[in-house]
């Protein structure tokens, strides 16, 4: 990879009890690019994604070895502020999970937690985040209605806006379109393409065509190992490893 990396892992291992879920993963995530992680169910791609913002810390019995560097700093360093880490590395989940509050409150929630009280400033952040998430035009007259009244695709873009509101550097997306219809999926994909101008995006997806469409780099994982990682075009046109070839041509998985 020639692009500058924002996150690098080296010899990263993770165990759930006795299960060795991630095995010696060394990967570099390029800054301001979209990196897709693909692989069959249970291969560890979501687990790897959740390592980047230490979400696995919330699970008892998880043990991690190896290092993850974010812009040169080890995120497992004692004294790392995990709340700050998760502000720098935001996350969007498979199912849209807006808070049962208004559209406005959903987006303003993060900045408030991080200490922004000024109404004018909050208004500005909410509008900008909704615009960046390509949602503002659809909800500008409904800012104070419940977020739960939005469609699934709008709710997912609201969750992206909520992530953007705290100005992260990296956005993790775990199957962000799997609960959406093709039109909503198209909007999210277009949005991902725009987001990489300002953010680094790491996306886990089961949809290989989606990985091929939206990402610049792709990593293929299998049974807890990173089998191959490279430019998306190369991975989908001419993968080096037979395992990758067999997976993306549907010969197993």
């Amino acid at each position, binding site marked *: 990879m020639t692009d500058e990396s924002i996150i690098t892992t080296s010899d990263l291992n993770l165990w759930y009890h006795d299960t060795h879920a991630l095995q010696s993963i060394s990967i570099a995530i390029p800054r301001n690019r979209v990196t897709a992680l693909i692989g069959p169910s249970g291969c560890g791609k979501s687990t790897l994604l959740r390592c980047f913002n230490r979400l696995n810390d919330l699970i008892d019995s998880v043990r991690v070895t190896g290092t993850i560097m974010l812009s040169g700093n080890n995120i497992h360093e004692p004294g790392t502020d995990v709340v700050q880490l998760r502000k720098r590395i935001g996350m969007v989940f498979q199912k849209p999970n807006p808070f049962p509050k208004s559209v406005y409150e959903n987006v303003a929630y993060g900045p408030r937690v991080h200490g922004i009280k000024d109404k004018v400033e909050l208004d500005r952040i909410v509008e900008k985040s909704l615009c960046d998430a390509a949602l503002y035009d659809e909800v500008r007259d409904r800012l104070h209605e419940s977020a739960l009244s939005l469609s699934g695709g709008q709710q997912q873009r609201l969750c992206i806006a909520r992530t953007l509101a705290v100005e992260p550097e990296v956005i993790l997306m775990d199957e962000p379109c799997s609960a959406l219809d093709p039109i909503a999926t198209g909007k999210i994909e277009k949005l991902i393409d725009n987001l990489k101008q300002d953010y680094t995006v790491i996306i886990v997806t089961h949809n*290989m*065509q989606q990985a*091929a469409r939206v990402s610049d780099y792709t990593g293929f994982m299998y049974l807890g190992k990173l089998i191959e990682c490279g430019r998306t075009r190369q991975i*989908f*046109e*001419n*993968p080096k490893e037979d395992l*990758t*070839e067999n997976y*993306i*041509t*549907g*010969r197993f998985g």
Partner: protein
Amino acid sequence: MSEKFHTELERLKQDTVEMARFARDMLCDSLQALAVQDIDGAKEILSRKKHIRETTIELEERTYQLIALYQPMAKDMRVIACTLKIITSAERIGRYGKDIANMVGFVKDQPEFMQPPPITHMARLVTGMIDDVIRAYETENIRPIENLSKRDDAVDTLWHSVFREMLTFMMENCRTITRGTYDIMVARYLERSGDHACRMAENVHYMVTGERIEIR
């Protein structure tokens, strides 16, 4: 991706091989018909035009359908891409065969007709190239097409030599102009067919290795 896709892809490939061999036979048989002035044989070759056209459309549609339904990737995608190119080139080769068959009737009444030796040699070289490309595509083994560039150079040299030779004949004796022109056209069609063999070989190379090469 389902097993169904791979079964259909394999069937598409086999049918493309068959179609390419059909086109190659059109070229070979037309050269033979021209050499021995076989008017009936030429007519029969002309009647194959319909089949090659219909097969081309049918194979192309099956390819498009596989793309639309399965969005193939990696090797599967390269097989699909190569297959489309092979279909196009093979159809062109078949049509050159048809064009040569068309000439048989015209050339028959020309005085002292005898196919110039370089054309016979070109025909042997070009059909050999086409055979090897089809075999490489069928077996996914690039060995038979590794020296195609050299063989195409020989074809080009022969084409230039036929061109010069015919031009000399025609300048010396204007009664040979009709015959000479047809011979130049036949040589040109063979040179073009050799070129199509090279294009097909480039695509087979890409299909097998994933790397693009240029065969000059």
